[in-house]
């Protein structure tokens, strides 16, 4: 019985992969540019939420300041490429600056727990937002940075919506693949152990401070990477993007998907990113409905977060697991009845 488990989950993983590829190809096949644009945003959010999932979903360390790392990546790369740096250099710098910001925040605050860590990260987010708004010579102040060039590697520029879409999703797929490797092996188990019992983890010889610092830096770096993708996709960054609101949405995406589940985080990201663009997915949706979803977006996110905490603490992944258990049970009783 224990042997059937891995093959079954492998089948599920492959099915998920195929479904993902079909879904991704769809906007291109349909040639619908609106859809392509929205799904590019989904891909950017996925990179960011994968990082937050490692930190919050797996290690149980909350961050209410991830918008800051997103912003650090976006501004750094935007600023440098406007000076004429190649995109790849801007990308590396953006990731590094965001990761360094993560380290700076992790060192003092990872000794804090629960609400205190939440407050520290929230404070960091607000300080970063203040910096984005006030450091005009670097960030353009509240007007932001304009005319950020499109991503380019060598002489090849990703300057059409389709190319941008491909670049973002290639990055997102790569990030997800690497993260999926991490979570099912030794480091992933260490993260979940810290979440489960920090005392137990220490008793197993895990340097919990070190691992928490590492995952915080990785998480911040991935948010920075998402920021770089965003800056060169939109071509314009301003402080209004990097608010507490965004940090909260990211937390909601992880929680909706289910703690300690990457596939859940993917589902949460897709659902909540698409919410304000429901008209692109569901044809014939009235203009009023779409306007309602857009106006009340933050409220809906908050509501989702509360409902998930109250009624489905396992999130989408938890529901999936319950369903799988129930299916297995019914199939077993069916087999029993037949024999």
């Amino acid at each position, binding site marked *: 019985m224990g042997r059937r488990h891995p093959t079954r989950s492998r089948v599920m993983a492959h099915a998920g992969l195929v479904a993902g590829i079909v879904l991704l190809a769809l906007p291109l096949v349909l040639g619908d540019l609106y859809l392509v644009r929205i799904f590019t945003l989904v891909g950017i959010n996925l990179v960011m939420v994968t990082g937050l999932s490692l930190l919050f979903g797996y290690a149980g360390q909350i961050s209410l300041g991830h918008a800051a790392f997103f912003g650090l990546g976006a501004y750094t790369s935007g600023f440098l490429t406007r000076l004429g740096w190649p995109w790849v250099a801007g990308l590396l710098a953006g990731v590094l600056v965001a990761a360094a910001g993560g380290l700076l925040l992790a060192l003092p605050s990872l000794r804090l727990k629960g609400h205190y860590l939440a407050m520290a990260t929230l404070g960091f987010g607000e300080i970063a937002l203040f910096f984005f708004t006030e450091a005009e010579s670097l960030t353009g102040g509240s007007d932001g940075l304009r005319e950020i060039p499109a991503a380019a590697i060598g002489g090849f520029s990703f300057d059409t919506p389709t190319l941008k879409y491909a670049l973002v999703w290639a990055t997102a797929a790569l990030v997800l693949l690497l993260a999926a490797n991490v979570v099912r092996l*030794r480091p992933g*188990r260490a993260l*979940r152990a810290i979440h489960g019992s920090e*005392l137990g983890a220490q008793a197993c010889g*895990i340097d919990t401070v070190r691992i928490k610092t*590492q995952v915080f830096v990785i998480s911040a770096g991935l948010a920075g990477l998402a920021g770089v993708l965003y800056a060169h996709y939109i071509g314009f960054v301003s402080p209004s993007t990097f608010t507490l609101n965004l940090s909260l949405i990211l937390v909601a995406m992880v929680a909706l998907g289910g703690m300690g589940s990457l596939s859940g985080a993917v589902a949460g990201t897709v659902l909540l990113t698409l919410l304000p663009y429901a008209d692109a997915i569901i044809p014939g949706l009235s203009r009023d409905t779409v306007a309602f979803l857009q106006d009340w977006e933050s409220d809906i996110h908050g509501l989702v977060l509360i409902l998930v905490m109250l009624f489905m603490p396992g999130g989408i992944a938890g529901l999936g697991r319950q369903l799988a258990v129930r299916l297995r049970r019914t199939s077993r009783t069916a087999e029993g009845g037949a024999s």
Partner: protein
Amino acid sequence: MSMLSVRGLTRRFGGLTAVDNVSFDVYEGTIHAIIGPNGAGKSTAFNLLTGFDTPDAGEVRFEGTRVTGLRPHRVTRLGIARTFQNTQLFDSMSVLENVLVGTHWHTKTGFLRAALHLPGVRAEERDSRELARHHLRLVSLEHLADVPARDLPHGQRRLLEIARALATRPRLLLLDEPAAGLNSAETGQLAGTLYRIRDMGVTIVIVEHDMGLVMDVSDEVMVLNEGAKIAEGPPRLIQKDPAVIEAYLGGDGGA
């Protein structure tokens, strides 16, 4: 020379001296029990031995190395493993994964190696799983390897914590009330498990309330009362020690 040497260990909480100038030695290959009435300072002593708490005075040496002042994970890496009075399992993880975490410090796949699935990662993972299954067999939990730890009943949670501790490759294993909540059949099995662990070359220190188990398995017993050592010696002599009888019967009876 003793394997674990404790000298003048003292820990105060405000006006209360939880552990009061306690010295003792644990010799390799033995099962050493620490007993005493509730609040005698047994669990505090365990925390002081494993880096989860820092003494106000005194020191602990393990095979000559100073343990006092080291953080808990460092103590584990020296070869001292422990379980907890309130089991500290990873509830959302499977039974096997719990034991796999025990192999953490002597395996080396980090974030980068795991992410890129570099050569050697697969082999190490396979070896770790084999080792973890071996330890599960030792405590008769192998058939539950894929069950989430949170679904285990109390007695098996204690056994799982022992398997996880063994996976850290200890030479000294500290067990904090392993028989608490076990029925008599389970306690009997536990005694057998303790002998098997000792015969693997792991020295055991056990804090326990179950006198039957203590008198049965231990080579040496130390008795704490109100933080201080009041007796030590082989179990047969301890049972007859007037100070011990006074601490157990007098203390509880008078209250």
